[in-house]
């Protein structure tokens, strides 16, 4: 079992503090959902964990099995077992999807122990079939000209091929129609189990109908303000966030009232 521990995390972007002391612990074999209104710092959390160059951690720690993640370069974090399915994946012209995924797999292997081309192709074909992706997507340039839904599916394809210890899914459900959502959820459920932990960031409870979380956390104003089980997500869906604000005495600020 592996554990990802985030303690008292403070993160700024362009000198504006977004995360203000966030705590979260997750183990492999668990799925955590993080919910919260727009602008509360969910993507900031995901970016800080992965090491996005624009986000500055000013205080706190992130550790994976006791190892200091904050000292690692982005690629070292990936090799330590972290994966972020991004809300807005980059487009890379001239680099095919297949070549990229193979490079990513080989980056985790020793020189001389690269995955054989045949084995790679078999696995890629199988996974693309599972995600109901057209085979020609493998030879398209990475995310270039992909629709929103195709990009999300492509993130899950990479997740399934790379098989990280911890996946952070940043609004993997946004912009997906119900069929695409089911496929994406199928992929994540396939990964579930021993050796895999997941943080699913979402704005809507809808995703959680297909991926039942073990834990649900509510983020507001840069902190986790409430944690519970799947029933918490359902209550949020039914009643919105106001009751939590009242319960905790949180004043509305711009960041909280901003809507999607």
């Amino acid at each position, binding site marked *: 079992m592996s554990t990802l521990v985030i303690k008292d995390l403070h993160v700024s972007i362009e000198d504006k503090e977004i995360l203000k002391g966030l705590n979260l612990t997750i183990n492999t074999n668990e799925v955590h959902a993080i919910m919260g209104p727009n602008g509360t710092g969910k993507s900031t959390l995901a970016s800080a964990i992965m090491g996005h160059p624009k986000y500055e951690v000013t205080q706190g720690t992130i550790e994976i099995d006791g190892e200091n993640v904050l000292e690692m370069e982005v690629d070292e974090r990936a090799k330590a077992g972290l994966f972020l399915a*991004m809300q807005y994946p980059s487009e*890379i012209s*001239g*680099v095919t999807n297949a070549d990229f995924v193979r*490079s990513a797999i080989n980056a985790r292997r020793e020189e001389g122990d690269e995955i054989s081309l045949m084995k790679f192709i078999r696995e890629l074909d199988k996974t693309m079939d599972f995600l109901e992706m057209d085979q020609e997507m493998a030879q398209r*340039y990475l995310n270039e000209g992909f629709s929103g839904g195709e990009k999300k599916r492509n993130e899950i394809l990479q997740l399934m091929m790379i098989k990280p210890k911890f996946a952070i899914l940043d609004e993997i459900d946004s912009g997906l129609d119900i069929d695409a959502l089911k496929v994406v959820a199928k992929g994540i459920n396939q990964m579930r189990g021993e050796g895999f932990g997941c943080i699913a960031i979402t704005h809507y409870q809808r995703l959680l109908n297909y991926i039942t979380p073990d834990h649900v956390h509510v983020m507001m104003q840069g902190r986790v303000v409430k944690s519970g089980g799947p029933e918490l997500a359902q209550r949020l869906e039914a009643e919105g966030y106001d009751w939590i604000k009242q319960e905790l005495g949180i004043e509305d600020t711009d960041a909280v009232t901003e809507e999607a």
Partner: protein
Amino acid sequence: MTVETKLALSATEVRSFSQNNNEPAWFGSLRAEAIEKATELPMPTPDKTNITKWNFTEFPQHTVESAPFSSLDELSAEVKEIIDIEGQENLYIQRNNTPAFLKISEELKAQGVIFTDILTAVREHSELVQKYFMTEAVKVDEHKLTAYHAALVNGGVFLYVPKNVVVEKPLQVVFLNDNADASLFNHVLVVADTNSAVTYVQTYVSTIEQSNGQANLIEEVIAMDNAQVTFGSVDVLAKGFTTYVNRRAHVKRDAKIDWALGLMNDSDTISENITHLVGDGSLAHTKTVVVGRGEQKQNFTTEVRHWGKNSEGFILKHGVMKDSAQTIFNGIGKIEHGASKSNAEQESRVLMLSEGARGDANPILLIDEDDVMAGHAASVGRVDPIQLYYLMSRGLSKAEAERLVIHGFLAPVVTNLPIESVKNQLTKVIEGKVR
């Protein structure tokens, strides 16, 4: 090193060179008249690059003798890699100024295809060469360097594809430069007759580190009605050359040209690639990639000029600049009056890998007709840190991520080269240069 002074070859010397070569009289006269013109004509004036201090005229000797190859086994490993030794049916190798190897299939001969070195062609296909040699596409008297070239041509290729002949497999040419005193006044003339189709791929490769010579290269493509020509070139000339390269196409009615140019010289280079879409319904795709490094100064002008109605021209240029390399990209789409319903599109992008490099992309649209479409995109920038972050978040090292982004950026030409071995060579050259 003995250096001849400016235009040291006199008209008399040029004539006697021609006679020693058993060239027909018209060619001897063309050379002699050209050398006279070369003394008077002005230098070309590439936009935004000052070449007044560049030396385009001096060189150690006009021609050097090199041994031909009796078999491909004699090629060095570096050159062998460019060629599919078993599979390449039609192949010409020029070594410095010497025609060194020629292989042409029986099938092509039977179809009437002519594929030979230019000076043999001048002798053996005199009329045909005379009709197209610097008459339609490039003119002798455009400026000093075109005239100088015409006077001193000492190598190159003639390719003629007769009417209705479709050549299925690419023809390949290798211009090997392994003598530091060699100067290349190569002339390539490709004539694709009505309804024909051909793919021609050449490589300029220096296996020396430093040249003392000149490279003054003129390459003409004539695509007759409904002909299709794919012209691929990978240029990897050594430092020390002063390179002037002029690639020009005349494209007639419903004809099509595809240029795929990987311009990887280490020399200072002035390159112009102009396509005249003379016929209605003609089409040009011009794809160019460039890597500049060291102290290199380069100027790349790509122009598509529309004369025919419904003609379409697409220019794509991607350049990577590192060290203190300086590069100008001029992209010109010109639609002449009467070329209605034409479309001129261009995209120029420069990626800067170091603080000291300079890159400049100048898109120019000149339109003399109302009913047309035109567009351009140009950018000069650095590798996007967010792209690197994305790639690294999947475990790729920073160096590997950068390598992928750069390869991707130069992919439009690499993927368009129709010969696998040349494609691999270009990939390797890029790898070596951007490292």
